[in-house]
């Protein structure tokens, strides 16, 4: 009985397959979405910039035609009942190879970026053209022969709050005019611990036997609390060489603001207010500095 049920279920599933996998299996997929598992039915996340790329089959289908367009068409909601309504919209983008020597247009390498902002089903169609013809009706070319009409299911991704879980960062920083820093930190949700080493370059490369050349390298540990803009924290900096009238362990207040990233790597503006000697007139013993911090690959904010 159980076996018969299983066979029946398998048969039902086989019958249902065409409804959920509408791509004709005989035709190759000419387009793919980078980072999404290549399958007959692609799935993409809502409001995430995707890169649509040509596959090898897609390149072959172009047959020397220089222009390749992708037509993205919204196919209405999950229910699909309104599939033929006027809300169906086609979005056309050009896929092209980058011009030689222009690194600023690397996104165009036979690919294009597209963000799906609605849940539901979309279709992708590869089109080809000999020359620019837009806005004539045939300006976006003809469907590339032999290519399947590809379907995409777009759904919302899980909502993840800021700074959940564990994250780590490591960085290089420049503190004008002469100091450089290397460091690393680990955050558990919003609370983090950091360790950094700072070198004063002229002292570091100067005469180490010169008694006035002290503390070329210092080490600091910090406790940080992460907020939306960046972090606030307290630090203890260790000065190996003794300086007259100054402490070897000096306390400070640190603040970092996250700036827009450069080539995907976060940049930070870091402020440091340090108390060199705890006295009653402590404000005379404060020193303030700013630094630019550049996170290295592998860091996760």
């Amino acid at each position, binding site marked *: 009985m159980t076996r018969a049920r299983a066979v029946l279920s398998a048969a039902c599933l086989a019958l249902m397959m065409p409804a959920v996998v509408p791509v004709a299996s005989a035709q190759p997929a000419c387009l793919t979405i980078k980072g999404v598992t290549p399958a007959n039915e692609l799935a993409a996340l*809502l409001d995430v910039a995707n890169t649509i790329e040509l596959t090898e089959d897609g390149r072959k289908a172009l047959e020397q035609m220089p222009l390749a367009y992708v037509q993205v068409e919204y196919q209405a909601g999950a229910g699909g009942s*309104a599939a033929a309504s006027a809300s169906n*919209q086609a979005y056309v983008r050009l896929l092209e190879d980058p*011009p030689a020597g*222009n690194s600023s*247009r690397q996104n165009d390498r036979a690919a294009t970026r597209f963000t799906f902002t609605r849940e*539901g089903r979309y279709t992708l169609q590869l089109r080809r053209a000999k020359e620019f013809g837009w*806005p004539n009706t045939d300006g976006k070319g003809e469907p590339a022969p032999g290519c399947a009409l590809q379907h995409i299911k777009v759904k919302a991704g899980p909502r993840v709050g800021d700074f959940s879980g564990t994250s780590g960062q490591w960085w290089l920083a420049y503190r004008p005019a002469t100091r450089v820093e290397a460091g690393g930190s680990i955050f558990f949700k919003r609370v983090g611990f950091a360790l950094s080493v700072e070198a004063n370059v002229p002292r570091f490369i100067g005469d180490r036997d010169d008694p006035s050349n002290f503390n070329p390298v210092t080490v600091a540990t910090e406790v940080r609390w992460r907020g939306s803009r960046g972090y606030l924290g307290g630090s203890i900096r260790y000065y190996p060489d003794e300086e007259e009238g100054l402490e070897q362990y000096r306390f400070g207040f640190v603040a970092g603001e996250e700036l827009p990233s450069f080539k995907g790597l976060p940049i930070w503006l870091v402020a440091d207010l340090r108390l060199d000697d705890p006295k009653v007139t402590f404000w*005379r013993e404060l020193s303030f500095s700013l630094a630019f911090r550049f996170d290295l690959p592998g860091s996760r*904010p």
Partner: protein
Amino acid sequence: MTECRCKGAMLAMVVAGVTASACISHAPRRTFDSLDPGSNLPEYCGTRQTTGDTTKNAEDCGVRTPHIASDSVCTSIPQLTAVGAAGDLHRQRVSCVSHERHEAVEKSATSLPHAGFDLHVLEFDDEGQPWNRDLQDRAFEVIRQQLSEPAVVLGFVHGWKNDASVCNGNLSCFRDVLEILAKAETAFSMLPRPADAGVTTTPIAPRRVVGVYFGWRGGTIKTRGIKQVTFWGRKHTAHTIGDNGGVTNAIERLRAMVINSRGSGVKTPGQALRTTSLVMVGHSFGGALLYSALATSLNAAVGEAIQKAPGAEATRARAAMETGARRSAPEKSLALPAGGGDTGPVEVDSSGDLVVLVNPAMEASRFANLHRASKLQFTSTQVPIFVTLASEGDSAVGGFFPIGQAFSTIARSARSREIWFSMVKGFGLYEPYHTHRLVLKPATDVPEREEVSGECRCKSNMGKFGDPLVTRLLDLYKTLDGTPDEEMLRLAGYQEMLYSRLEPVRDVDPNNPFIMASVDPAVVADHNDIFNPRFVDFLIEFVVRSELKRGLSNQYGQRRLR
């Protein structure tokens, strides 16, 4: 500690210098008031008397244009760029007035003809009030008379480190663009047309081209190195000028005049290109100023449109807006509801015509509400309203601006990391808000960049590219004079221009009136590279298509095009 005190003293000196300079050099450049001692009227201008009477003089300048003699001067780009004493004298003469009447140019072997153009300079002080209110009132009266005939009104708000001086770089390039527009209008008017179309016969009169340059004190210090520290002061001033009402008032007066001059509805698509239209362009802090002046009315128009959307559709549209406003990270409610056509459609009032911001230097968070609106569905008759174009090569807004913002927002909190980035990133450079990308077409005949120097000359030599551009645009004009392809009028869909193409990077409605586009550096290389043929071509073509769509919208009312 001594080193620290020295640094402190130096910083204090810089701050004092900046403050003093900001206080001392506050004077207009073109809109002098001889009765106001603070207006710094140059000696060579003498005492001018105004009668308030406008005169029409068919011979003067070869341009039949209303003007007030004491407020205006007859000039031309060759006269303004002439070298030597004669050129200096002419530039002095032009610098004393706020209305330039540019002479008509006959067709020659080296130049296409045009029917002349007018350039009005309106100047505002740091509090956003007109430097010379009487003069501004007279300028509006002259413009009103000029708009008795169909015209193209192009407003430009300059940015940081610029002003309204007669040979200011932005103003010089703006003149070149106005001349190109005048040539394009003349060329369009001379296109052969069938007389039996029942609309018009050949030839038609070219539309008048009227430029309005909004001047303000974009720079306070010219000393290299130090002038960068005026960033915070000038940004704040730009927003203050925009907020305080003077500029809004001026723009609304222009809008009212343009709407009045259009008269009754347009009859055919081609005629849309023969009615009066207004385009406002703001660059850098000028974009910030313009947005501050118009943001309230833009958001109000969106709110009104949502409320006016019919029945249940409106409820869904409102829900989409409200749920969108609550989110701070990707979530289901951000999306247009499944079966997006049920969401609207809405139609936002576009009587104010097109507003274009180029490399605007302000924070992206100011666009948050309009970004929600860009997720709605719009009627097919919706006309483009607001376009932002930001170069990916703009290191000033992309690199320097966030650092400036990190300091200037020191006392403000952000409720999420995403919102923080929208507070420090440039208005057009915040990826989540991008709806389009403007990319150079891989064509082989894209003009190479040029750089020239000389008094009153546009550094990028924009004028030189005008004739080839107009010649190539004629093909477009021929297409538009008939019945255009519907795809061409879905302006938020895919659009190809002569040198560039505008591609949607997300599935916004193809009739979306709010376009936020990043621009390929091959089209706009950096912050100031806005007067180049690739970009000017895009602007002209986009504006022409918008005008055409407005004509069709008027013609068909609320009927769908598709």
